[in-house]
Structure formats: structure tokens, C-alpha cells
């Protein structure tokens, strides 16, 4: 809404259906030690269209994980409404799948069995079909040959690929990604971003991607939502009108840098504001 007022280059326009709708979503944690409620997310309004790739960008501890957990149905909201295809989100469902900040693989299962875990829990596919799909996805995320390896035998980046393949194996309509590449080195991260876009175009899912890396948000998303520092509020929304498919040239383009700068300033304000607040609290 700030930058590209045009919708060129976007896969979705006004005719597409709203997939996720958040209205005034507020989330509290009960903190036993303080015997008080802690406001983590405050009044989030978001619409995500079918097939859209949306990134949420925000400083550490601003409630990004909390919000995406609410979308996944593992975190109850304390106010507002959160609907998927018009139905209120009451719990986890087969229409969503999460890629976690920590890989969260079962150490006693092989790569293939980890990839199958989600689909198995959702009782989605027959044995034959699921095994075939798992093998296809393992190749898709570049882990061919490691089907029988255990997580302890994989590098961090390889574990995150399994994490991604596990979510894709459930054929979700909406893919939820919580800083999946945050722990990777810069080169591996760019590689994974390329692969994620490739997979996303192939699988045609809606994606909600959380990150605190500005470049990552710009490269991946159709739209970037900036969260304020604690508690999480929407500070700003930016359309990313970079053409798809995106690749190396996208990262080098002037438009890319322009949007990046814009977001950078916006985030910096937030980080400074948060730091000032912390200092004030320390002094008090």
C-alpha cells in the first residue's frame, strides 16, 4: 500500500478469494511467575488471499511466532477473530502445515519417516501413495539419497529441508513458515529461498512466512507486513511488485534495493523505539 499501488507482477488480484482473515487478533500469555497476563500480540488485522505469499517482518520477541501459532491452531487467541475460508480457527487442521523455527524432527525416525509424519497424523494418504509422495518431496528439497538417514546425521540446513518437506507432504492449502532459514549461513539461506519459491510455484499453496531478515522478506513475498516491537502490532504493509519467477537478477535489481531500504528504515524505527522503551524501563 506504500510502494507499488499497481498490482503488476502479483499472482493475485482483486478477484482471488480471501483465505485467511484476522480481525483484531489479540493474544495474551499467562505468566505464572508474575501472576499476570502478558500482552504478546495486539489487534492484528490481516487478509491473505488464496495463493498469495505474505511475509511478516519484525524484531525479535515481537510476537511473530505467537501469531503464526494462532494461525496453526496451537495457540488460543484472547480477543478478535481469526478465520480460514470463513470458518473460525479452533484448532489444528489438515488445511495448514507449519515449518518450524527449530526443525523439530523426531530423532528416532529416518528422513523418509519424518517427512511422512504429518501426513500420517492427518491420516491423509494410503501407504503406497504417501511413500511415493515422500520420495518425490525428498528429491524436490534436494535430499535424494538421504531417505534412510537419521536427523542426527544431517546438517542444520538438511534438517530444515526435512522440516519443509514434512509440511509439504500434507498438501496444505496454507503453508506456515516460522523463520525456517534463520539458523543457516547466508549462502545456504539464499539457496533455500530459491528452492522454496520453486516449490511454492509448483505446489500453488498460500504461504505465510515469518522472518526478521528484510532481504528474505522482499525476495520471497508478494506483500510484507511489518510488526512493531512488543507487543506485536501492524506497523506498515508494503506490496512487493517484483516480477516472478524471481532469481539472482531480482536480488540485484534497483527495485529490490528500493523496497529493502524502505523496510529498513521502518524496522530501524521500531528497533530504536523498543530499545528506548527498554532503557526507560531500566531507569525507572
Amino acid at each position, binding site marked *: 500500500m506504500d510502494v507499488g499501488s499497481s498490482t503488476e507482477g502479483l499472482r493475485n488480484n482483486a478477484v482471488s478469494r480471501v483465505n485467511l482473515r484476522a480481525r483484531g487478533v489479540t493474544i495474551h500469555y499467562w505468566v505464572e511467575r508474575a501472576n499476570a497476563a502478558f500482552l504478546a500480540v495486539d489487534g492484528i488485522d490481516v487478509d491473505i488471499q488464496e495463493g498469495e505469499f505474505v511475509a511478516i517482518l519484525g524484531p525479535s520477541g515481537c510476537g511473530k511466532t505467537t501469531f503464526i501459532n494462532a494461525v*496453526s491452531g496451537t495457540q488460543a487467541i484472547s480477543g478478535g477473530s481469526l478465520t480460514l475460508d470463513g470458518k473460525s480457527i479452533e484448532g489444528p487442521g489438515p488445511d495448514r502445515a507449519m515449518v518450524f523455527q527449530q526443525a*523439530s524432527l523426531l530423532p528416532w525416525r529416518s528422513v523418509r519417516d519424518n517427512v511422512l509424519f504429518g501426513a500420517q497424523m492427518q491420516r491423509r494418504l494410503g501407504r503406497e501413495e504417501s511413500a511415493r509422495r515422500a520420495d518425490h518431496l525428498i528429491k524436490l528439497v534436494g535430499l535424494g539419497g538421504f531417505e534412510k538417514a537419521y536427523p542426527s546425521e544431517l546438517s542444520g540446513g538438511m534438517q530444515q529441508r526435512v522440516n519443509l518437506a514434512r509440511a509439504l507432504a500434507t498438501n496444505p492449502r496454507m503453508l506456515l513458515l516460522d523463520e525456517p532459514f534463520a539458523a543457516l549461513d547466508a549462502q545456504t539461506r539464499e539457496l533455500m529461498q530459491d528452492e522454496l519459491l520453486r516449490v511454492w510455484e509448483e505446489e500453488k499453496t498460500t504461504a505465510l512466512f515469518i522472518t526478521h531478515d528484510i532481504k528474505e522478506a522482499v525476495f520471497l513475498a508478494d506483500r510484507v507486513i511489518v510488526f512493531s516491537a512488543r507487543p506485536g502490532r501492524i506497523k506498515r504493509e508494503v506490496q512487493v511488485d517484483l516480477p516472478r519467477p524471481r532469481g539472482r537478477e531480482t536480488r540485484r535489481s534497483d527495485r529490490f534495493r528500493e523496497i529493502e531500504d524502505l523496510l529498513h528504515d521502518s524496522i530501524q524505527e521500531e528497533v530504536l523505539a523498543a530499545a528506548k522503551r527498554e532503557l526507560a524501563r531500566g531507569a525507572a
Partner: protein
Amino acid sequence: MTDRAAQREAATRDAVETRVSATPDRIPGQPGPIARYERAIIGTVSVVSFLIFWEVIAQIRLMPELFLPGPSDIWRAYLVLLKTNTLGRDIWVSGQELLVGYGLAIVVGLPFGLLMAWYKRLGFALDPFVNFFFATPRTAMFPLFLIWFGLGLGSKVAIVFLGAFFPIVINTIAGVRNLDPALIRMARSFSARDWDLFRDIVLPGSVPFILSGCRLGLGHALISVVVGEMIGAEAGIGLMMANAGSVFQTARVFVGITIVAGAGVILTLILQKIEARFQSWKPQP
């Protein structure tokens, strides 16, 4: 000069090639030719030396045989006991008591511990009892069991069960409480039901704790069999040892000790095999 240069060039080429295609002499973690058997060799040598030392001490009779019989004396006592045919019966009786009591403790204790850890309120309700029994020496309950279940198998099965049950329960609870909450959240996000969580996360995730609970429980079970039989029984290794001890047949007491120790070692080995099976995914330390 040119010769030198050529030589140097060849050396560089060699170095590069070595770096590229070298197979290392030894990969860290790969066992050497002897290392594989090191454990068995050193262990055997140390045990055999000890037995020889013991035999020598016993044979020079620093102390009377009544006080310290040597390994050969114990072996002779063992053969005599076998001939009289009561030893087989004693082993059979004690073995039954041990296996039935211990088996029951596992079959009941495991689900008991899982449920207590999983359903918080059930844990609240049962915690006081578990703590009470775990803190009390359970052999103190034996006179009660003699009254309730008599001199036969029943009272010993009960005391073995009680001895093994609580370590298994307490370790199982600790195993469940130590599960990675991120894994539970992950499974929940994929709509896992309670039963799925049990089978695919809680159970495999707490196996190391459960098995060490089983090992602890085994120690308690062995103590319970022996002590129980010494206090009140019609047959069994414990009774045999108590009788032999009261008439200073020291070698027979040692026979009993070796049988109990042997049973402990064999059962522990079986548990270790099971543990290894469950842990094949673990990185080697």
C-alpha cells in the same frame, strides 16, 4: 636447476592429489583392529586374575575354609548340591518369583507411569502414594505379605513386584516430563490425537528413561527375592542360603551368591540388548 623445478612441480602435484583423493589412515570413530575386542580382553584378564588370586589366598588357608572358601571349593559345593537335586527346585522357585513379579511390575508400572505423567490430575492424585512407597524400604512390608499371601509363591511375587514397580514408575514419569515440548507442539500442529502422541512421541521419547528404570527395578527385584525367601519361604535360593549360613556351610552360601549374581548379569545384558535396539538412531558418543 630445471631438474629441481620439475621435482618441485611433481611434489606439488603429489601434494594436491593426496589432498584430493587421500583415504585417511584411520577415520575417527572407526574401531582399530584390537579396539573392537579390547573391552572383552581386558575384562576377562582382570576377572581371571582375581579368581586366581582368590584361589591362592584360599588354598594357603590364611583363613579356615569355613570362613573363606576358594573358587574350587565353591565349585565342589555346587556339584554336590546339583546331585542332591534340591538346587534345581530352588532355582525354579526363585526364578518364577522373580520373573512373575518383575514382569508384572513392568506390565503394570509402564502404563501407570505414562498415565500419571500425561494426565496431570491423575498425577496429583497418585503422587502422595508413589512418594510414600518409594521412600519406605519395601522389604519392611514383607511380614504383611506373609500374612496376606502365605509362605508360598504369592508373598515373594508381591514383594518383588513392589520392589521393581516404583523405580519403573518414577523413571517413566521423569521420561515423559523430559520430552521436548517443541516435538509435542509439532505433532499437535499436524492434528495428532492423544493416542498418536503416546505411540509416536511419548513412548519412543522416554524409552531411555524407562529402560534405566527397568534396570533399577531389576536390582530391587533381586534384593526382594533373596530377602523375602530368607525371612519366610518353603523353597528358593534365598532359603537355601539362609539355611546353609546358619550351619556354616559357607561354600553353599557362595553358590547362592553366584547364582543370584549370574541371574542379575544375564537379565541386565538382555536389557542392554533391548536398549541398543531402541537407540540405533542415536549418534555414537
